[in-house]
């Protein structure tokens, strides 16, 4: 499903990713753990095509499509979704309008018909209920005045609405208390499917108690330095990153 080979990338001429290899098969959940500054967010931005993150070598494919050739919205249409570490506030853009515009943009790009207001609201209502999102949140502007937990839940809501093939979650657990963490993890688990892959980026092992990964990778200094099963996360929690990064 997702195949990354020898990926190198830089920001402002400074090399951040140093030849990263990663393969995630359909239906699998891979976790990426690593110390602050390792390049975890950089990887997620490079994969989703953010300006300023320049790929200098290597390849990244999603189901055989070269992601690196596409602009951010084309990657979204190809099925890639990034849950942001810091979801962006957009004053003046209402949540419902935002979700509808996003969903219809993607449907259009995929050659599906655009949804009428009523059909859209039906989908929204059911997803909203599953994630315990209050009506009030959907009446506000995108992420404006949202608590930390609401912002992360909003990312998962968008993920559920857009039905991507491949989801990257960038530290979706940071800043969440245990209840919010459970709700978010529950939302993600519901989306697990045989034809969908996940890359769960986290600094702490805690999230992986709730979203149990098939494979755990350690990212340090811009490359994968170790790969193992779910037990690797526990090991890291106990020993810390120091040994691996050294």
């Amino acid at each position: 499903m997702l195949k990354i080979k020898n990926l190198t990338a830089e920001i402002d001429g400074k090399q951040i990713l140093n030849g990263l290899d990663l393969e995630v098969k359909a239906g699998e959940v891979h976790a990426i753990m690593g110390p602050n500054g390792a390049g975890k967010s950089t990887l997620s931005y490079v994969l989703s095509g953010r300006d300023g993150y320049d790929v200098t070598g290597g390849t990244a494919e999603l189901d055989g499509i070269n992601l690196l050739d596409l602009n951010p919205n084309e990657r979204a249409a190809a099925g890639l979704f990034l849950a942001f570490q810091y979801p962006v506030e957009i004053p003046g853009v209402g949540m419902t309008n935002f979700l509808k515009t996003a969903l219809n943009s993607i449907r259009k790009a995929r050659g599906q018909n655009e949804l009428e207001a009523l059909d859209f609201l039906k989908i929204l209502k059911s997803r909203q209920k599953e994630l315990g999102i209050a009506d009030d949140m959907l009446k506000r502007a995108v992420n404006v005045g949202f608590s930390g937990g609401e912002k992360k839940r909003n990312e998962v809501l968008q993920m559920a609405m857009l039905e991507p093939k491949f989801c990257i979650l960038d530290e979706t657990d940071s800043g969440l208390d245990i209840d919010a963490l459970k709700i978010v993890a529950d939302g993600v688990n519901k989306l697990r499917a045989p034809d969908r892959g996940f890359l769960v980026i986290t600094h702490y092992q805690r999230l992986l108690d709730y979203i149990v990964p098939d494979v755990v990778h350690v990212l340090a200094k811009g490359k994968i330095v170790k790969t193992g099963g779910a037990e690797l996360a526990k090991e890291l929690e106990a020993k810390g990153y120091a040994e691996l990064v050294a």
Partner: protein
Amino acid sequence: MQNLLPKSLPDLDKEHWKYSNVNAALKKLDVALSQPVWEMTGAFEFLHPDIENGVHLSIPKNKQFMRPIELKLTGGEGQHLDTKIVIDVAEGASLKIIERQTGCGAYWKNIKVDINLAANAQLEYYRLCEEDPFCVVTEFLTANLARDARFNAVVVNGCSGFGRNEFKVHLNGAGAYADLSGLALLRGKQHGDTTICVDHIAPHCKSSQFFKTILQESARGVFQGKIHVYKDAQKSDGYQLSNNLLLSPLAEMDVKPELEIYADDVKCSHGTTTGELDETPMFYLRSRGLNEQDARKLLIEAFVGEVLDKMTDETIRALFDERVQLWLK
């Protein structure tokens, strides 16, 4: 040229007019004094006959209006319209005014608006300017607010060739509240200047200035906003925000915020931003599937929407929104 300007033009001291050369703009025009004809909807019984070249509304005590009163002035080629609106609102009365400015050709409108709000009076004042791109408009609004009076103004300027919109608000009575907001939409070689001074004269008054500009092509915008708190105006609450969106590398915006505070127990703040559309929300939207054009459109609509949201009257908001959307196309 200086002596061509009528007395009704506000002071032309250099500092105050630093960014806007009205004389140069007027030199390009060939205009002759003409009789302004105001079109008006309703409220004729409250017209005061003392002004020949303008409109004087005198609203009696506690009078409430169901509908907004619309005043419209159309400019024509070669005209110099020197005119005045006076609105006196007696105690406890409230109304909504829509001032519409349109025209076709090269003309000069010089408009003075005098607003006097007695205690507890309320005025919602909406101005929609869709002038000819070759005209010159100088408009000077003065509002005097007595105790607990409320003045809400929203000004949308799809601008003239050269426009100067000036506001002078005097918060004379305790508890008075002035909320001013505006949107200037500039393109081509247009020049749009908004200059504001709010005087907090009495204590416990509140004021807000919320102004935005969108500039395309080689347009030039100016925002000068001042909050002036007098010595006795304790517990004043003054706010000012100027956000400006440059959609072209040739466009230019000058912003000059000013706080002049002589009281010691006050809350005043101001902020300003000028720049292109932010990259971060742009990327966020595109990562959700919106193409560049749609993402830009949504962000620009949001930018103007924050000003339009200041309009509490749904019908008026819809009218202004429709005109703004036309401009954005």
